[in-house]
């Protein structure tokens, strides 16, 4: 951990990103006022509380309804089970088109499917992928890369001259990705919400998900069971909030509501599964330690709708970006999940003590997750194993001995270690 260096390295990124983050808030304020925001948050919180409280029942109901609709639902516990399941579905196909998914990030799919070409089709992720970079943000992963850098990478990787403008890059990507999307027989996407009445909701602006999910033979959806809610009406509310809180946009350009493989009965009423869209839809519900959060003091994390609003205004994230959090999620949420998915030492290195407890993430969260409080609970667990900054031990000794965090007070001298608040 070398914070000073990390902060310095992030200074250029900071200049690019911070205006986008401030503008996000400004745009959102134009869409909804404080009262509407509060109403939306309260309603969403209720929807998620109800779902998670009753998740076992709800999951059963969802699986039953999805399967009745012709969707193959597979529950997997961990990476290994996921690997077995996905390899079976993919079979010998070599090219897989993929869209953005934070859940897929949890399982490092590239390592699992080394003999396949997994192509990111979301522009931001595509840029990140070809640049061999790390995703910067759960919703806008490539916002730290400049047009100049991107066209350089395109030249290196594809030997194509592209003007260093966002327009030219998008045009290049459109052509390049379409060629691939038309060829691929297997497509991989995430999901934003699963409604227990039998539908999968996926939102996007670019159109790649709509294309993938219709053109391929096999559409594989990977998500966590925590995305399940009661019905389509509730799902629709989450879709809208995801858009507003993630990027300050009123509604996503496309919302795919997928309730089964494509079908037709136009020829003599004979039902044929696999008409013009996907022939098979597979839904992999990943646990990956989510069950360990259920009925614990960290259960609230399962309410998360993955919009990334918690880091959009986070003071720590604004300085060091991906150095705060885990590989699958930036910021305090990633820190906490890494204590479950990796271990406590990892959670410490991911920034368990970086949080200033400012609670702006909670204020900005569409489901009011109190990440500052959850971080304190995590610190409590780490403290029991003495995984904490050295200063803390000294500060506590001081309060025990002298009643204040600074130590013995010399009237002529002012303490210089400001351990307080």
């Amino acid at each position, binding site marked *: 951990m070398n914070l000073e260096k990390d902060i310095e390295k992030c200074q250029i990124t900071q200049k690019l990103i911070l205006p986008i983050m401030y503008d996000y808030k400004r745009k959102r304020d134009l869409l909804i006022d404080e009262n509407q925001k509060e109403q939306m948050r309260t309603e969403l919180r209720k929807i998620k509380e109800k779902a998670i409280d009753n998740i076992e029942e709800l999951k059963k109901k969802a699986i039953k309804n999805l399967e009745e609709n012709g969707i193959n639902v597979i529950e997997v516990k961990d990476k290994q089970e996921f690997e077995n399941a996905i390899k079976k579905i993919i079979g010998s196909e070599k090219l897989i088109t993929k869209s953005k998914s934070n859940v897929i990030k949890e399982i490092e799919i590239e390592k699992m499917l080394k003999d396949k070409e997994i192509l990111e089709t979301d522009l931001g992720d595509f840029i990140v992928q070809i640049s061999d970079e790390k995703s910067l943000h759960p919703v806008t992963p490539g916002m730290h890369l400049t047009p100049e850098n991107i066209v350089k990478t395109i030249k290196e990787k594809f030997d194509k001259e592209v003007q260093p403008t966002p327009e030219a890059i998008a045009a290049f990507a459109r052509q390049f990705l379409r060629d691939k999307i038309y060829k691929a027989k297997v497509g991989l996407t995430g999901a934003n919400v699963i409604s227990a009445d039998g539908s999968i909701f996926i939102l996007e602006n670019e159109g790649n998900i709509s294309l993938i999910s219709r053109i391929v033979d096999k559409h594989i959806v990977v998500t966590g069971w925590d995305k399940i809610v009661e019905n389509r009406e509730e799902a629709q509310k989450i879709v809208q909030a995801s858009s507003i809180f993630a990027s300050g946009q009123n509604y996503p350009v496309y919302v795919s509501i997928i309730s089964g493989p494509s079908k037709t009965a136009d020829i003599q009423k004979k039902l044929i599964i696999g008409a013009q869209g996907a022939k098979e839809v597979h839904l992999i519900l990943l646990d990956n330690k989510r069950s360990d959060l259920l009925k614990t003091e960290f259960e609230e994390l399962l309410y998360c709708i993955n919009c990334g609003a918690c880091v959009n205004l986070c003071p720590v994230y604004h300085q060091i970006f991906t150095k705060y959090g885990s590989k699958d999620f930036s910021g305090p949420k990633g820190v906490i999940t890494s204590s479950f998915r990796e271990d406590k030492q990892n959670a410490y290195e991911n920034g368990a*003590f970086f949080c*200033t407890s400012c609670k*702006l993430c909670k204020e900005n969260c569409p489901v009011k997750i109190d990440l500052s409080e959850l971080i304190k609970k995590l610190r409590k667990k780490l403290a029991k194993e003495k995984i904490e900054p050295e200063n803390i031990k000294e*500060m506590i000794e001081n*309060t025990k001995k002298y009643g204040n965090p600074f130590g013995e007070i010399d009237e002529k001298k002012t303490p210089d270690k400001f351990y307080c*608040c």
Partner: protein
Amino acid sequence: MGLIKSIKNLGKNTLYYPGCLTKFVLKDINDNYKKILTKIDIEYITLKDLEVCCGSPILNCGHEEEAIELIKKNYKIFKEHSVNKIITSCPACYHTFKNTYPKFLEKWDLQVEHITQTIDKAIKEKKINIESLDIDLTYHDPCHLGRYCEIYQEPRNILKKIGNIKEMKLTENYSFCCGGGSGVKSNYTPLANSIAKERIEMAKETKAKCLTTTCPMCYLNLKENSKDLKVKEISQLIIGEEE
């Protein structure tokens, strides 16, 4: 003086609790507030080194048991001195006394006031006349006072007497942190400094001549990281100290 008053007002003492950072590091701020309290005719006692840390930094780093020790110690000493009301100038202490002590001490029955509430009330009752410095200033809401306790208006009411408030883009319930809280100032100083610099940029954008706040940690961290924007703790402006 404190002790004599304490005997005289048996069962109804008001304690001024500056908090460790103000008491031991920002001694001039401590003096300012004592002067202000006297000026608005509030009889108060101080407990100097009899009282201990409120427990906030210890709770924030996950050491609940050690914090409970301090909470019990403070309660005992407050009761011994017949304290029934605490006025504090530190937002973290305020939040801890107001919201956390009742969670750990069922019998906790002390009134708690943040000093900006005390001063705001005194202004309304015309017990204090705050002179205008006729400047454009911007106010940084401390997280513990704002989001934790929803005190947004009282400090602004005071500041309106002093100058013209120019709000930053992230303000009130959306206030951006100064970066110093929860031990970050001492555990990860470069991080605290970097956050403070981002906040100062927001303050500069308002074109205000002075950035002011009412939290010792915010004040310290912002002041240390501000090159050309003046940073003032609200008490300094109340007593008319512009420079």
